[in-house]
C-alpha cells in the first residue's frame, strides 16, 4: 500500500511538472506565432542579393524573423511602397525565397507552385505516416492542409511521429502537429479535425479538399476513406507500414466518377474482401522501425506533389500514371519493388457501374465498416479455475505464512513466459522461462491436420517439441504469462492438448492480464513498452 501511495505521489509530481512545462511551451508557441504573423505582415526584404542563402545576415534562418522584426521599424516608411507593388509578381517575395529550390525545377516551376498553393490536401491520421507526409506538404507550400486524428500524443509515438515532441505528450496529435507545422511554414492554412473519422462525417470533411492521404492504421478506416474518395471524386494516396515493410498506392487516379472504367482502381478493386481480423497486426503488437514508416510518409508527400502539379496542363489533363503498388522492404535487396496493379474492377461495389455504395448509404451510417472488417473477440479460452490474478500469483510466489512459516517460493512451480525472445530479453519476471508463442503455435496439437507432416518426419519438429519434452520431466505446477494475457491462455490450452497436465493431476494456468496486470497490481517498476 505504501508503495502504491508513493507511486501515486510520484505520478502526480511528474504530471504537475509536465503541465508546467506545457504551459511554458504554449506561451512560447503563442509568442512565436504572434511574432511570425507580425513579421509576415511587415517584412520588407532588405536585399536582392543573388547569393542570398540560409545563413544570411549572419544569423541562422530560425532567428532571422526576429532580426527582421527589429530592423523592420527602420523599414516602415517604405511599407506603403511595398503594398502598391502587390500583384506585380505571381508569388509573394517570401515565397520566391522559400520555395526557390523547387521553383527552379521544371517539374514544379511557377505553375506547379501556384497549383500547390491553390490546393487543399487532407491528411487522415497524424502518426508515423501523417507526420512526415504533412511536414513535406506544408514545407512545399500546399495552400491548405487539413489534419484528421482523434488520438493524443503518447511517448511511444515519438520515435517515428516526427512532428510531436516530448513536451507535447498528452496533447491531441492534431494540435501538436499544428504547432510544429506552423513554425515550419506559417504561409500554409492548417485546418484541424480533432476526431476519429466516421461514415457519417467523412463526406462533409472530405468535400472541402482536392486530394486525400490515407495515413491511418486499420482496414476499416482504409475502406471508409477509399469509398468516400470514390464518391467525391478525389484521388487517394494510400500507404501503410509494419515492422520493416511498407506499401504505397495512388488510388482513384484519375478520379473519374463511379462506373467510368477509365478511372483508376480504388482500394476495394485491389482488396475486395477485408483480411481476416486475426491476420491484422498493428504497429503496437508487431513493432515498427521509425525510418521505415517515415520513408512511406515521405513517398506519400512526393506522390501527392506529383499528382497536384501535374493536373490540367492547358485544356487536356495530363494522363495519370498506370496504377502500381510500391513495396518497400528495408532488409531486402533491392529495397524497392514496383508491381503493376489491375484497373478498375467491373463489379467493384464502390467504383463500378454496379456500385452499391452511395453518399446516402454512407451518411445514413448503415454501412458498418468495423463489422465488415470484423474484430477479434477478446480471447476467453480458459475457465476461471485455470486463471490466477497477478496479485494472487505474487502472494503465491513470495508469501510466507506467518503461522506455519511455510515459504512459498519461485522454485515450487514453473513460470513460463511466452512472449517472443526479443521481448523476453527486454525484461522478465525473475525465474521465468521463455518459450516463445511462435514456437508453441507451430507445435502440432492432438488434432492434426491430415495434410500436416507428422511430428518427427522433419528435424524442425523434434526441436520445436523439445519444450514439451522438457516440461514432462517434472510435475511442478505451470503458470503461463505473456504481455497482455491472450497468448498465455492459448498456450495453456495447447499444453493441456499435449497432455502436460497428466489428465488433470498437474495444475496448468495463466496469469490474467499478463505482465501489464503484473505492472499495474504488483510491480510498478516493471518496464512498460
Amino acid at each position, binding site marked *: 500500500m505504501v508503495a502504491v501511495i508513493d507511486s501515486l505521489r510520484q505520478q502526480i509530481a511528474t504530471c504537475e511538472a509536465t503541465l508546467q512545462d506545457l504551459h511554458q511551451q504554449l506561451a512560447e508557441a503563442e509568442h512565436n506565432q504572434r511574432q511570425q504573423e507580425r513579421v509576415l505582415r511587415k517584412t520588407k526584404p532588405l536585399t536582392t542579393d543573388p547569393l542570398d542563402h540560409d545563413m544570411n545576415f549572419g544569423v541562422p534562418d530560425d532567428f532571422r524573423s526576429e532580426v527582421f522584426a527589429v530592423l523592420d521599424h527602420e523599414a516602415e516608411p517604405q511599407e506603403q511602397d511595398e503594398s502598391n507593388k502587390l500583384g506585380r509578381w505571381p508569388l509573394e517575395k517570401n515565397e520566391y525565397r522559400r520555395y526557390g529550390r523547387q521553383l527552379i525545377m521544371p517539374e514544379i516551376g511557377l505553375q506547379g507552385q501556384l497549383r500547390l498553393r491553390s490546393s487543399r490536401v487532407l491528411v487522415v*491520421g497524424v*502518426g*508515423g*505516416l*501523417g507526420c512526415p507526409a504533412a511536414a513535406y506538404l506544408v514545407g512545399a507550400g500546399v495552400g491548405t492542409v487539413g489534419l484528421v486524428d482523434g488520438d493524443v500524443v503518447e511517448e511511444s509515438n515519438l520515435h517515428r511521429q516526427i512532428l510531436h515532441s516530448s513536451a507535447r505528450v498528452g496533447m491531441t496529435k492534431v494540435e501538436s502537429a499544428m504547432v510544429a507545422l506552423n513554425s515550419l511554414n506559417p504561409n500554409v492554412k492548417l485546418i484541424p479535425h480533432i476526431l476519429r473519422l466516421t461514415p457519417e462525417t467523412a463526406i462533409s470533411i472530405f468535400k472541402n479538399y482536392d486530394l486525400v492521404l*490515407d*495515413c*491511418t*492504421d*486499420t*482496414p476499416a478506416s*482504409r475502406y471508409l476513406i477509399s469509398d468516400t474518395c470514390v464518391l467525391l471524386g478525389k484521388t487517394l494516396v494510400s*500507404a*501503410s*507500414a*509494419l*515492422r520493416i*515493410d*511498407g*506499401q504505397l498506392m495512388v488510388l482513384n487516379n484519375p478520379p473519374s466518377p463511379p462506373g467510368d472504367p477509365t478511372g483508376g482502381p480504388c482500394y476495394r478493386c*485491389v*482488396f*475486395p*474482401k*477485408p*483480411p*481476416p481480423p*486475426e*491476420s*491484422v*497486426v*498493428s*504497429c503496437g503488437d*508487431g513493432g*515498427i522501425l521509425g525510418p521505415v*514508416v517515415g520513408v512511406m510518409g515521405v513517398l506519400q508527400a512526393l506522390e501527392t506533389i506529383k499528382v497536384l502539379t501535374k493536373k490540367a496542363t492547358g485544356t487536356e489533363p495530363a494522363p495519370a500514371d498506370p496504377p502500381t*503498388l510500391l*513495396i518497400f*522492404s528495408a532488409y*531486402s535487396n533491392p529495397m524497392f*519493388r*514496383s*508491381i*503493376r*496493379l*489491375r484497373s478498375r474492377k467491373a463489379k467493384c461495389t464502390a467504383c463500378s457501374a454496379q456500385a452499391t455504395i452511395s453518399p446516402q448509404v454512407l451518411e445514413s451510417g448503415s454501412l458498418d465498416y468495423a463489422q465488415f472488417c470484423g474484430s477479434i473477440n477478446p480471447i476467453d479460452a480458459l475457465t476461471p479455475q485455470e486463471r490466477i490474478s497477478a496479485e494472487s500469483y505474487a502472494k503465491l510466489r513470495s508469501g510466507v505464512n506467518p503461522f506455519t512459516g511455510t515459504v512459498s517460493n519461485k522454485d515450487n512451480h514453473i513460470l513460463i513466459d511466452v512472449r517472443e525472445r526479443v521481448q523476453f530479453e527486454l525484461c522478465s519476471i525473475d525465474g521465468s522461462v521463455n518459450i516463445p508463442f*511462435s514456437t508453441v*503455435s*507451430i507445435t*502440432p*496439437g492432438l488434432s492434426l*491436420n491430415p*495434410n*500436416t*507432416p507428422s511430428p518427427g518426419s*522433419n528435424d*524442425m519438429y523434434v526441436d520445436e517439441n523439445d519444450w514439451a519434452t522438457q516440461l514432462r520431466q517434472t510435475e511442478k505446477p505451470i503458470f503461463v504469462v505473456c504481455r497482455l494475457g491472450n497468448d498465455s491462455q492459448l498456450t495453456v490450452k495447447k499444453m493441456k492438448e499435449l497432455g502436460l497436465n497428466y489428465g488433470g493431476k498437474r495444475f496448468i494456468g495463466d496469469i490474467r492480464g499478463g505482465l501489464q496486470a503484473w505492472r499495474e497490481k504488483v510491480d510498478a517498476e516493471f518496464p512498460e513498452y
Partner: protein
Amino acid sequence: MQNDEAVPITVEFSGGLEILFSNQKKYSLSLPSQDESGAPANVAFLVRHLCENVMKDPRKELFILDGTVRPGILVLINEADWELEGEDQYEVQKGDHIMFVSTLHGG
C-alpha cells in the same frame, strides 16, 4: 509433358507472410508440371503445393481460405497483379517469379 517433369520457379513472401514459411523470404522450387488431375500446373495448384509441402506452420488459415489465397494477400506473377494474368488459372511457366504479399495496415 510427363508427370515427373518439374517447373523451376521462384516463390517469394513479403509483408510478414514469411513468418508462416519458416521465416524464409525466397524459395527456389521445382513445381510438378502437372497437378493431381494431370492438368498443367497453375497457380491454384502452386498454392496447394505450398500449403502441403512447404508451409510448416499449422495455421493454414492464415494463408488459404475456401481453397484459395485468403483475402488480404496479393499474388503477383512476374511483378504484376495476378488479376492481370488470369488469377489462379494462370499456368506456371519455367522461371516465373511468383510473390505473395500480405497487405499491411499499420501507419
